[in-house]
Structures are given as structure tokens and as C-alpha cells.
């Protein structure tokens, strides 16, 4: 893995290369590629839904520290609590136990500093693409002119400058999701939370979106927590992959991903990629088995208590 690989990119035939102009100085948060904001500190997080007999432990004792600017992928089987962890960081769900801090401040409610991209684009259908992207800056008190200027800049970055005046319903799913990403980023969040943002897209579009996202991240160095259950996607995108166990969700493994930077699709055929993937699968398998045994032991204990 060398860091000075040629950056030739092999794009899928139908994807448009995304143009990056060099005029993004105002958008750049960090000049030297070192982020200083967006430190996430999760301590002993447990989330229990419901009360009494019907209570359900969705997340159990998760501790996770994410340094500023890191791209963390959270993987795990369906229903293991990935979305719940993300919702808690966003401030939609309150921790039952434990704390979540972002840059030293305890998360209590949703705020613009923690942007989110959902599986569905969730754009405001009554606003134009530009209006959607300008929403965040407007809400944070920027002038209309300034907000629109920022929005155009971010639309340019996701390659949709020409669609500024369209309405979301006239865009394809992939384009809508790019607008959603631009919208979240235009707010300059300290943390970008992404919940299976490419889950609903076809394979081709997905690859293009992944590359676009990496490009954006390299430029902005926002801390990203990216939920997926696609291990390929997680290894391709992440600096680090955190694997969660099936219910109740807790952390099985925390793997640093040392692949060539900047990432391009060629890493997918590097032997290192295949090795990492193998490691991940093995970890998941072994730990799942372990967790499964623990779980069945625990549940039999509970039954004995009753």
C-alpha cells in the first residue's frame, strides 16, 4: 500500500466524473487536511425502548471514541441497533444510560452541528433543490444571498449545479441522495451521520456515490459515522470499521482500515482489501457465535430467575 499511487480513476461507464473547481476555499474547513472539530465520545451508552416487561434493550454498553475528521463505518446485522446509535448521536433518542459528547458538549437534542443523511433522501418536496440545500445556512442565520451562494457551491461539489431550480420529485433517487448530502454538508456540521444512505440505490450508482462522498470528505474532513450492512462498502469508505453484534447491540470489533489513500475503486481488487474482508467475516462469525452462546446463557439465566 503506497500513499503515492497514481490517482487515475476508473469510473463506471455511465457515471459522470464529478468536476471539482479549485474555488472552494470558502468551503474548506481545514487547509492542511487536519480536522480539529467533530470529536465524538460515547461512554457506556445503553438504549432501552419501552418500560417494564415490554422493555427492549436495543443498544448495550457501547463505548466509542471517534477523533475529529475520522470516517467510521458501523456495520452489523439488521436490527442490531445501528440506526439507534446514530439517532442517539443526532439527539433524536435519549440515552437510557451513558453519555454522548461531541467536542466536549453533551448531546441533548438535535442540532445543526450534527448533520444527518437518511436512507431515503427526505428532501422538502415543496422546495427547489437550491432551496433544500440553502435551508441549513438560512436557519443558522445566514443571509439569503450568502445561503444561496453556499448552496450553489455545494451543489457544484455533488455535480448537480444544473439542477438548482428543479424540484426533488423530478430527480432520480441517486441525484436526490446527492442533494441530501449537499444539504447536510452546507451546514458545515461537526459530524455527518449517514444511515445506509446508498442502501436504496443500484450497484452502479452506489459506486459513483461512494466515490463522490470520499472526494467530499477528503476536501472537508468532517467526522463521518456511516452505517451500512455492506462490508465491502464499509471497508472501501472507512478509516475504521466498527462491527456490532446482533441484539442487544454491542461492539464486537473495531478495525482500523489501512488501505491506500486517497481511496479509489482499484483498492477493491487489492489483496489487502480481500484480506480485510476475510478478517471482518471471520470476526463477525466468531464473535457472533460467542455472542450467541452468551445470549442463550443469559436468557436461560433470566428464565431461571422468573
Amino acid at each position, binding site marked *: 500500500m503506497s500513499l503515492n499511487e497514481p490517482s487515475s480513476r476508473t469510473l463506471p461507464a455511465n457515471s459522470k466524473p464529478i468536476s471539482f473547481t479549485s474555488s472552494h476555499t470558502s468551503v474548506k474547513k481545514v487547509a492542511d487536511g487536519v480536522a480539529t472539530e467533530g470529536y465524538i465520545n460515547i461512554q457506556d451508552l445503553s438504549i432501552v425502548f419501552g418500560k417494564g416487561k415490554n422493555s427492549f434493550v436495543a443498544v448495550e454498553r457501547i463505548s466509542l471514541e471517534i477523533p475529529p475528521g475520522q470516517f467510521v463505518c458501523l456495520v452489523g446485522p439488521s436490527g442490531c441497533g445501528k440506526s439507534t446509535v446514530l439517532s442517539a448521536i*443526532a*439527539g*433524536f433518542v435519549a440515552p437510557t444510560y451513558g453519555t454522548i459528547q461531541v467536542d466536549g458538549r453533551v448531546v441533548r*437534542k*438535535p*442540532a*445543526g*452541528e*450534527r*448533520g*444527518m443523511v*437518511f436512507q*431515503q433522501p*427526505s*428532501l*422538502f*418536496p*415543496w422546495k427547489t433543490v437550491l432551496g433544500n440545500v440553502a*435551508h*441549513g445556512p438560512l*436557519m*443558522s442565520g445566514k443571509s439569503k444571498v450568502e445561503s444561496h451562494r453556499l448552496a450553489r457551491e455545494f451543489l457544484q461539489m455533488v455535480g448537480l449545479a444544473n439542477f438548482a431550480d428543479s*424540484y426533488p*420529485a423530478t430527480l432520480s433517487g441517486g441525484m436526490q441522495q446527492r442533494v*441530501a448530502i449537499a*444539504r*447536510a454538508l452546507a*451546514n458545515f456540521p461537526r459530524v455527518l*451521520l449517514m444511515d445506509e444512505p446508498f442502501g436504496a440505490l443500484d450497484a452502479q450508482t452506489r459506486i459513483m456515490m461512494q466515490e463522490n462522498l470520499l472526494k467530499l470528505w477528503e476536501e472537508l474532513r468532517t467526522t463521518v459515522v456511516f452505517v451500512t450492512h455492506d462490508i465491502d462498502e464499509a471497508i472501501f469508505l472507512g478509516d475504521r470499521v466498527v462491527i456490532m453484534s446482533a441484539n442487544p447491540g454491542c461492539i464486537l470489533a473495531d478495525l482500523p482500515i489501512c488501505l491506500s489513500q486517497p481511496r479509489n475503486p482499484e483498492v477493491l481488487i487489492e489483496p489487502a482489501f480481500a484480506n480485510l474482508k476475510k478478517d471482518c467475516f471471520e470476526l463477525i462469525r466468531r464473535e457472533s457465535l460467542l455472542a450467541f452462546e452468551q445470549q442463550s446463557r443469559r436468557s436461560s439465566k433470566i428464565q431461571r430467575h422468573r
Partner: protein
Amino acid sequence: MTKQQALNRLVLGLSIPLFLGLWEAVSRSGSVNSVLFPPPTLVAVALYNWAIDGSLLIDIMMSISRVVVGFVTGAAAGIVLGILTGRYQILSNLLSPVFQLLRPIPPIAFVPIVILWFGLSELGKWFLVFWGVFFTVWIAAHLGVQRVDKTLIRAAQCLGTPEKRMLQEVLLPGALPYIFVGLRTSISISFYTLVAAELAGTFSGIAYRIEIAQQNLQVGQTIGGLIVLGIISAVADKVFGLLSHRVVWWG
């Protein structure tokens, strides 16, 4: 245009003339009492006589003004309260049971008490139309606010939308498609309460004139009044339909 399409067009254009022709023929055939069932030509003459002395215009204006006042006030109150009860559980708990109790009572059933309260004044007519419109719009706005996509609300929250701007930025536009369905339904309701209100006693208006004509056995004018009423409410519905497509273009 294919032959089939041309034929379809032709039949569409013939629909009303054929209906009028049949009516004319039946009415003049002698098989029905043409005093009670006058032909369209005589209805047209009656409408013409009604129009030239200026009273048709006055009647139309009076009826429309009642609908407009009742509809606008009822819709405004319904939208405001619907958004509030849809948004704030405590207000919903306070008001919804009462509204749900009053809502199913047909507005027409209020005519007798309205006459006691307001006499034959305009206020009574406005009140009845208001009553008919309010509950329909209220429930539409209430449900509309509650059915706004939760993810949209979350998206707005993590874009830093302050709570006090949520209404204007997300809840109102999100509920608008529902509200417009409620408003459109209310248009026909308001005409139907208007008729009840005018029949109950007044001195002008289309439905009032229909009743007076009936008492004088001027059947031509009675039927003419029905046609005028039909045209007005059809136009109102059409105009509103166009308007709602412009306001809620995404819905």
C-alpha cells in the same frame, strides 16, 4: 387524431345538447304536465326575465357573499386550530373531544336554533356556512400535521431548524396537501349549507328565489335557479381545483 378519438370528442360535445333536446321533447310531447315540467326554452325565458330586472345579479351576489364569508372564516379557523391541535397534544386533548362531538351533527340541523339566535340576519347565514366548513377543515389540518413525514421533521431538526420555525418551514407545507383536500370538500358543503340557510328565511339569494318562485308556481324560474346554483358551485370547485394545483404543486 384517430377516428375513435374524433368520435369521442363529438359525443362529448353532444352530451348537453342531447340532454336539453330530450328534455324539450318530453316536456312538449304532452305526456307530462308542461306547467310542472317546463321545457328548457321556457326556463331560459324565465332566467332572462329574472336577469333583466337586475334581481338575478343581486341574488347571485348575496348567495356568493354568504358562501365567501362563511367559507373564509370557517377555513381560517379550521386551519389555525387544526394545526395547533395536530401539533400540541395538550390542545388536542382540550379541544378534540368537543369538536369530535359537534362535527357529526349535520349543519342543517342548526337552522332552527340559528333563527332563534340570529333571526333572519346575515349573521345567521354566515354562521351556518362557517359551521359546515370549520369542522371539515379542522380535521383535515389536524390529521395533515400529524401525517407529515417524521423523517422530514428530523431532517429539518438536524439542519438546525429552531422549534419555533418548524411550523412555517415543515409542518404547514407538509400538511398543505391534506388541508387543500379538506378545503375542496368544504366548498360543496358550504353551498349545501347555504341552501338550507336561505330556505330557512331571508330576503334575497338564489335558493330564496327558488322557494319564492315555487310558491308562485313559476316552475321555470325554480328550475332556472337550480341551474344557476349548479353552475356557480361547479365553477367554484373548478377554480379551487386549479388554485390548489398551483399552491400544492408537489402533492
